[in-house]
């Protein structure tokens, strides 16, 4: 978890391994629209102790499952603007198949399991918390 801007150059340094022949990086960015609504900005809340332990568990599982050389991930907390990097996931592996598959698996597991919540602020002044599929928690709130 990071309260400040993610530096992808620094993060990528964690993946180096002489046995690795492939590196896949995924960056999740804040976009200006969701479910047909215009998004102005968003906030992330996290239950940090559990988010960190769940994140470590996911990375350990990925290393084991996909035989990775290294895996690392960072998620922002706090207020973000359009275009900001919200999440960074990096993996290295001997070959590209494992690296591509692991990258996708890790971001999917983060979205499914890690206790982080997104509150979107819309251009019309409303805001709302979202479910994992980006639908609103309280559609009539």
């Amino acid at each position, binding site marked *: 978890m990071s309260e400040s801007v993610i530096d992808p150059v620094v993060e990528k340094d964690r993946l180096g391994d002489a046995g690795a022949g492939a590196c896949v990086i995924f960056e*999740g960015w804040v976009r200006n629209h969701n479910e047909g609504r215009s998004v102005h900005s968003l906030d*992330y*809340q*996290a*239950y940090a*102790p*559990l*988010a960190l*332990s769940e994140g470590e568990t996911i990375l350990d599982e990925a290393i084991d499952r996909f035989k990775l050389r290294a895996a690392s991930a960072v*998620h922002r907390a706090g207020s973000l603007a359009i275009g900001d990097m*919200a*999440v960074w996931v990096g993996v290295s592996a001997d070959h590209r198949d494992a690296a591509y598959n692991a990258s996708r698996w890790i*971001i999917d597991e*983060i*979205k*499914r*399991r*890690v*206790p*982080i*919540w*997104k*509150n979107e602020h819309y251009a019309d002044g409303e805001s709302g*918390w*979202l*479910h*994992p599929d*980006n639908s609103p*928690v*309280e559609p009539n*709130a």
Partner: protein
Amino acid sequence: MRVRLLYFASLADRAGCPEESVDTQAADPAALYDAVRLRHNFSLGREHLRVAVNGQIVEWDHALNDGDEIVFLPPVSGG
């Protein structure tokens, strides 16, 4: 016994606070959530939540102890 509750996302908005200490006789998180849900008028049913005690995800019938930190986790939306 006295336990500490942390609230996040829609539950924090409904409760009007990020945390509170409560005196309770609830034996497990299921009973505790039922009581807290009534008091704060939470719309989310227990089937939509997970629960963590002292930083670990637990089952709803996990035995509670004095001083526990309990978090009812709404559906997550990171990434």
